[in-house]
């Protein structure tokens, strides 16, 4: 992906982090589409607590970059109101744990505006949510709550896990005529840099990415766990096990075909995610396998996930999260079956 982008770039593009890619995408789209506005707590002069909107206020002014009063219901409601009247608001929930008060507007209005008016009104909005644990943050700053939205018709739910995908998918999300919940894995915001041309090229919002080919077992993951999963694949390779790694990237709608194709080859699937196991989004992928790939499976599906408890405060949090060890162990269990 990144390679293609380099080719397409007009002037030498810089290597940037995932969060810088977010900023770059926001700036690009704001330059090219007047109807795009950014809103949230501290997104203005402060540039967001993670600096995702750094510089935007200076570039586009306070009428395009709006600090909101401290209320997530307000952010969600204003966003739906603006979107339904022809603007393209990109709202930020400051942290994953603060987006629950937005659920009502997302479910009852954003996801239904087109449906309930038979297309007369619509809701082209993006809700950006810094997501997940592992940064030694305080309580409520480390949640993996993507599953809340995946059962809600009318939404798109995406989670990029590389700078290039963050850039391309955020552009796509803003241009999408329907509401998108855009989760950003904050643990890998600054994990590594990648050259991402600022060429305005969007990436599709309905495909999974095969990050690594392998014939023995399919590792399916998304968000920050892509890091551990790729590391697990490396570790497995050392033991002669070739793992295919898939970044789901878009959870809703799910590109199950890519997963099914991989499993038809490997016969084994380990699903890795950070959220608690029970009814996490991994369940949906496992369910699809049980429905549509049963005859391909030679081993039971495995899920390596957060435990069914809250992510603990930071002294214990790394023990909660899926680790390379846990992924490797599950993959080996799968490969041991036949």
């Amino acid at each position, binding site marked *: 992906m990144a390679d293609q982008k380099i080719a397409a770039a007009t002037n030498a593009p810089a290597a940037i982090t995932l969060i810088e890619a977010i900023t770059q995408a926001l700036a690009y789209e704001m330059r090219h589409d007047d109807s795009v*506005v950014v809103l949230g707590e501290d997104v203005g002069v402060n540039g967001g607590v993670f600096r995702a909107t750094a510089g935007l206020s200076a570039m586009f002014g306070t*009428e*395009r970059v709006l600090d*909101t*009063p401290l*209320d997530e*219901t*307000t952010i969600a*409601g*204003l*966003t*739906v*109101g*603006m*979107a*339904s*009247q*022809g*603007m393209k608001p990109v709202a930020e929930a400051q942290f994953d744990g603060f987006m629950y008060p937005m659920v*009502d*507007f997302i479910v*009852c*209005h954003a996801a239904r505006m*087109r*449906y*309930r*008016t*038979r*297309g*007369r*009104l*619509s809701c082209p909005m993006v809700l950006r949510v810094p997501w997940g644990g592992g940064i030694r943050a305080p309580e409520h700053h480390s949640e993996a709550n993507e599953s809340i939205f995946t059962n809600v*018709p*009318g939404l798109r739910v995406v989670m990029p896990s590389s700078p290039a995908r963050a850039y391309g998918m955020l552009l796509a999300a803003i241009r*999408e*005529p*329907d509401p998108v919940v855009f989760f950003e894995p904050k643990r890998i915001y600054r994990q590594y840099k990648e050259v991402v041309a600022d060429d305005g090229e969007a990436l599709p919002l*309905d495909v999974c990415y095969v990050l690594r080919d392998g014939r023995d077992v399919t590792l399916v993951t998304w968000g920050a766990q892509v890091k551990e999963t790729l590391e697990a694949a490396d570790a497995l390779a050392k033991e002669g096990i070739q793992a295919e790694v898939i970044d789901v990237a878009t959870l809703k*709608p*799910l590109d*199950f075909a890519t997963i099914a194709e991989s499993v038809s080859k490997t016969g084994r699937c380990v699903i890795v995610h950070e959220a608690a196991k029970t009814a996490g989004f991994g369940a949906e992928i496992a369910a699809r396998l049980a429905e549509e790939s049963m005859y391909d499976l030679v081993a039971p599906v495995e899920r390596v996930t957060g435990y069914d408890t809250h992510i603990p405060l930071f002294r214990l949090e790394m023990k909660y999260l899926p680790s390379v060890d846990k992924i490797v162990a599950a993959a080996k269990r799968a490969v041991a079956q036949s």
Partner: protein
Amino acid sequence: MTLAAHFDIEYLQYLGPDGKLVADLPKGFDPKTLVPLFKQMLFVRVFDTKSIALQRTGKLGTYAACLGHEATHIGIGASMRPEDVFAPSYREYGAQFMRGVHPREVLMYWGGDERGNDFEIPRNDYPWCVPISTQCLMAAGAALSFKLRKQPRIAVATCGDGGSSKTDFYAAVNSAGAYKLPLVLCVINNGWAISVPRASQTGAETLAQKGIAGGLNCLQVDGNDLIAVLEAMRRAGARARSGEGGSVIEFMTYRLHDHTTADDARRYRGEDEVKAGWTREPMLRLRSFLTSKKLWDEAQEKAWLEECGKKVDVEINAYLECKVQPVEAMFDYLYADPPPDLLAQRAAAIALEKRNG
């Protein structure tokens, strides 16, 4: 005592329950302009009566009547411009008719058909809003979009006395103040939120004063007095259009009917109260005022009511003749660009329909 702040809330009323003026008319106000509005009020009442009957005979789903709210609803609708945006709750048909919503659309909505929300005329108005008071905050968002794009438009939202307890209402008040939005929040206080009386909703003496929490302009109005409604909306609209910001207006009226056709108000309120409500209702006083001004008479009313009956019947027939949507309508308005799995479900649903004949 050092004062940090000080607030007065004005009460507006012109027409008493007996149809006599209790205050001088607003400057330049011409009573003749009331006649077409009074006619609209009568039209709404005919529509309401027939809709209730339709529900009672099984031809409509649950229906929320607007009996007693006519002056407030028509006054609000009359005060708006076509390019403004209206965000109703679920019973403000009078205001919606003034904006161009067809009565058949109301019936389709309560008749279980989403097409009722696809208004032919006020294309940007919000549909009926069931989650209480969320429309207030959406309207704030709409108002914010007008302000950011420098469009000379305002947003008007309505909610009930119960709705004024909802956090979304407070969020709308807060936003309107923080951004100085061209927003008019109309709290239609009809005394009841289903079975819960106004007094149980809040310790506030007036609902208008909730606007103080956001630094908004606040006004309390006799909502059964069309003249007061018009004057309150004129003032709030003028403020909003001139960049002075938002208003909260409390319209004091009374819900003469059950909450909806699914409710039985006798379980929780006395006959006496309802009887008293009928003495203050909005048509009575306006009819008597217009009659006293020789602007209206019995013959006119009879003829007009007949016409209303016919008009409403045309709408009802259009509603009743409207075929149910095909099964794929469930799928076709969810995404502009529906994902493949959804299209597969759509195809399966169509196939099932065909199989079942």
